[in-house]
């Protein structure tokens, strides 16, 4: 292994990467740009869901109930239909996702201690929003119901706090307000950092198309030297976009950074080593640059979105799928990213994942060297 030769390949590749200013700029900025775009797409915190209320009672108590429903910004009163026939057209238009129907006699029943009913019709076409609406309507209704019980107990002369036998105190660690962005964006950082690997997969395919590979394999350059020489500059180029992505996440989207920056940087290098090894392995086989790009898109983006635990939680995956998911480096790095940013995890908690990344990198590096022959 001749380090001078490796260095000269590194230098040459670095020139290839940086001399075309446009593509170099794209390489540096595209992870951050992708992050911004996708963060907006994936911020699924739902608020202000429109509901309608059909009040058939028109009483002070029914009006009190309605203002309870609208008391938070989870639900927003959008429509006040007067007749039952108006409900369906309202839901069809999509202006409201649910309609609450308060029956006549609501106040009379509640005040005399008799149970009453409230009907809720929900638009089921978007289960996410429907679920949100149902949860909040139920929550508010329960709260209102408890107030009514307290009033009745007070009237009967009994202590008011009987209505709430168990005080459930919930604390969400690391992400108190359970904001989706806090979960999504660190995961997205993990995914967008595999974009530079797509550029690396072009490396050998490009030399083949240029015709320079033919001249290169006629020289005594070693296979290992060539592969290592191509790996290093791409890892470096990918590494340059890491601080940018972190800045976007933390400064732009207010994602917390509770862990060690150094740890994150070091682990991102290992992640890049793993993805670049896979990318180079791909480029040994890719007949053309288009094939290389398509292949790497499938491997990195597809696995990143659907198998890394971002959109589909691991608990929903069958054992086979879970095993496959953990063969991709993105899966491990998404966990690492979330752990460091949100949980402030240290190296000890992440050892297994780091080992997995190193393992993936070494295996694919070895495979690349084995499969790359200096023959046409």
């Amino acid at each position, binding site marked *: 292994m*001749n380090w001078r030769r490796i*260095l000269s390949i590194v230098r*040459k590749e670095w*020139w290839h990467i940086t001399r075309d200013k446009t593509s170099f700029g794209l390489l540096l900025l595209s992870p951050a740009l992708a992050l911004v775009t996708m963060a907006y797409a994936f911020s699924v915190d739902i608020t202000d869901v429109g509901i309608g209320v059909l009040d058939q009672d028109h009483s002070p108590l029914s009006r009190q109930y309605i203002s309870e429903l609208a008391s938070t910004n989870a639900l927003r009163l959008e429509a006040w239909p007067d007749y039952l026939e108006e409900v369906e057209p309202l839901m069809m238009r999509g202006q409201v996702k649910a309609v609450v129907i308060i029956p006549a006699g609501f106040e009379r029943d509640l005040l005399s201690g008799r149970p009453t009913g409230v009907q809720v019709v929900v638009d089921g076409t978007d289960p996410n929003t429907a679920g949100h609406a149902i949860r909040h309507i139920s929550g508010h209704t329960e709260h209102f119901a408890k107030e009514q019980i307290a009033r009745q107990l007070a009237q009967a002369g009994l202590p008011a706090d009987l209505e709430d036998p168990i005080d459930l105190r919930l604390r969400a660690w690391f992400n108190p307000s359970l904001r989706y962005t806090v979960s999504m964006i660190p995961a997205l950082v993990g995914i967008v950092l595999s974009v530079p690997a797509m550029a690396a997969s072009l490396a050998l395919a490009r030399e083949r198309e240029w015709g320079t590979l*033919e001249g290169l394999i006629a020289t005594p350059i070693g296979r290992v030297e060539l592969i290592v020489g191509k790996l290093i500059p791409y890892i470096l180029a990918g590494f340059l976009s890491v601080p940018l992505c972190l800045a976007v996440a933390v400064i732009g989207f207010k994602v917390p950074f509770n862990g060690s920056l150094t740890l994150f940087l070091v682990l991102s290098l290992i992640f890049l080593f793993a993805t670049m090894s896979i990318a180079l392995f791909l480029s040994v086989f890719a007949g053309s640059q288009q094939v290389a790009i398509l292949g790497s898109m499938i491997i990195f983006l597809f696995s990143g979105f659907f198998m890394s635990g971002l959109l589909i939680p691991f608990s929903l995956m069958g054992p086979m799928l879970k095993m496959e998911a953990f063969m991709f480096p993105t899966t491990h790095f998404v966990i690492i990213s979330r752990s460091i940013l949100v949980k402030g995890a240290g190296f000890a908690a992440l050892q297994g994942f780091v080992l997995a990344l190193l393992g993936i990198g070494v295996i694919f590096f070895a495979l690349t060297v084995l499969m790359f022959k200096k023959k046409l």
Partner: protein
Amino acid sequence: MTTDEPQVAVGPDPGASQPAIETHELTKSFKTVVAVDSLSLRIQPGEIFGLLGPDGAGKTTTIRLLSAIMDPTGGWAKVAGFDTVTEPEAIKRRIGYMAQRFNLYGDLSAWENLNFFADVFEVRGAERTERIERLLNFARLTEFRDRRAAKLSGGMQKKLALACTLVHTPEIIFLDEPTTGVDPVSRREFWDILTDLHLQGITLVVSTPYMDEAERCSRIGLIYQGRLVVCDTPEAIKAMTEGELIALWPADVRQARKALAGLGGVLEIQTYGDQLRVFTHDTDGLMERIRATVTGAGVEVYDVRVTRPRMEEAFISLIRRQMAEKSDEPA
């Protein structure tokens, strides 16, 4: 047969008359075509060996096989005493290879390209600096040293590519159609450079479709459809053309050719611009008969004389003979 001799790890002994390149029934078949068919050659050190043949004849494949960047499907080849399949790296250290396509890095400058290959061939220190300067000079590229290779003219690119093969002072250089696509003046310059290298004792194997370049080689291997049709000095090959040659300048070439078509004693007629070149066994008697026949057909004859066949004619004639033999062979 050299296959019985013990393999020597060191290079060829300069005192011995071991060939620089030797092949035995070298064959390369692809899925649908046999590109190189049982080629057996012996090239001596210090020769300029020309591989001559039309497009698709198998020249590029032959050169790739000899440069140890492609493995044959049959037969063997030894370059500088090393087997191309089992000892390719030993060969690659000793040869230079210039591919048909421009194979240097377009986004690197001329100097950076030379520097890169110097690194790859482990040429170091003062020797390296001096050699790079000398090569830039030799390729007439000193003032263009910092220009990106993609921005050089075609001729300059070829010279740069040649310079890059010389950076490690190889024993043998393979050049695959080095002058294709280059203007005639640059072509001549390029061959002057090759002749210089030849005089320094380097073995050159050059493939070319240009017949006139073939004349500048020590020996020529004529390749057609993957087979070696003939392998000898240019003079010997030209002498192989059957018969003697009469050149005719008629007023109307087509009519004249038609008129001479059935004439007895005529072996072959080739058109060359405004000339008709007639191959015949016996020039003396025929010259006057040709003139008479053509004039008799109403075509004026400006000039007629005996002449020597050129490479091109030899080649076409030999190919025709090869094709005739092939069609006589059982299918």
